[in-house]
């Protein structure tokens, strides 16, 4: 699935990912390939991405995530590292 993490300032991540873990507001959850359509808000915490080349982590300060037809879109207000 393709994953985009964008903030108002820049595009933080854009590319293929096999699994993504989100800090959902009601607890952590993971999105894999062919996930059902989902909209969720995020708490402050780490977004962990599993890509072909390894694992990457971004700390987001709140945001929303939308999953639709293997396209995952994260709108974060701020991303730390």
């Amino acid at each position, binding site marked *: 699935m393709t994953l985009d993490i964008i903030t*108002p*300032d820049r595009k933080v991540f854009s590319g293929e990912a096999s699994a993504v873990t989100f800090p959902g507001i009601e607890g952590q959850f993971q999105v894999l390939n062919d996930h059902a*359509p*989902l909209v*969720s*808000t995020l708490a402050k915490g780490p977004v962990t991405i599993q890509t072909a080349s390894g694992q990457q982590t971004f700390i987001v300060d709140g945001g929303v995530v939308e999953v639709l037809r293997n396209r995952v879109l994260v*709108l974060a*207000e*701020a991303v730390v590292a």
Partner: protein
Amino acid sequence: MPSLKEVRNRIVSVNSTQQITKAMKMVAAAKLRRAQDNIIQMRPYAQKLSEMLGTVSAGADVAAESPYKAVRPVERVLMIVVTSDRGLCGAFNTNVVKAALTRISEQYATQQSRGNVEIMAIGKKGGEAFTRRGFKVNNQFVDSFLNLSFANVRAAAESAMESFVAGRYDVIELVYNEFKNVATQIVRTEQMLPIVSKPADATATTASAVNYAFEPSEEEIIAELIPKSLKIQLYKAVLESNASEHGARMTAMDKATENAGELLKELRLVYNRTRQAAITKEILEIVGGAEALAN
């Protein structure tokens, strides 16, 4: 007629002024590019956010109540005025300040007479202009342009939103320059809070065909999204104003360089004329002297 030396000094000074305006124009052009890039960077976020808001509200049955939609009798007004930090950009700042003043005198004259209109200045020039006119000015976020980023603007937006929810203001309006093109800026006045609900657009109905799982409920997601879109609204205004500022400065400096060129042309003419007059005078004196000797 001015002396040769005076004209020469004048030419030198106009020349160096022209060099400065030329350099400023070039700097403004470079900054304009960066400002435009910033707008382009922000666009996908803003677009996706409003799309998402559309999808989620289409799924929710009731129009969610929000503290940001509370319409109260207008007692206290906050005007957020976005200007620039520096001058030398033509009528850029004057236009915004004038628009804000007209808005206040037309719409909020009674509140103004009771001293209930406050200004939140973003950009030094606006802060100065309103302080001079005796307004209550909140200068807390005046320096947002020093390091223009979403984080800064977000803090300003959050403070304004908080004081609206707390009831310190009943209306918040936003005045800024919108970037149309390098030469044209449009002064915009928008009501930021309370939110004016727009009629549902067509895109929302097509998106609702997908059966989303919402976590937590739609209402809660909407409650999260609304403040986000408000912050983006302010951020967009600040970015637009920033691009407009550099555009305005570019045109102003271009005009100044051109004017300096014309002035130089005139001065050179005067210089040459004076020089020739002096030479002619000297020759006449020599000829006159020689003739007197011959007699």
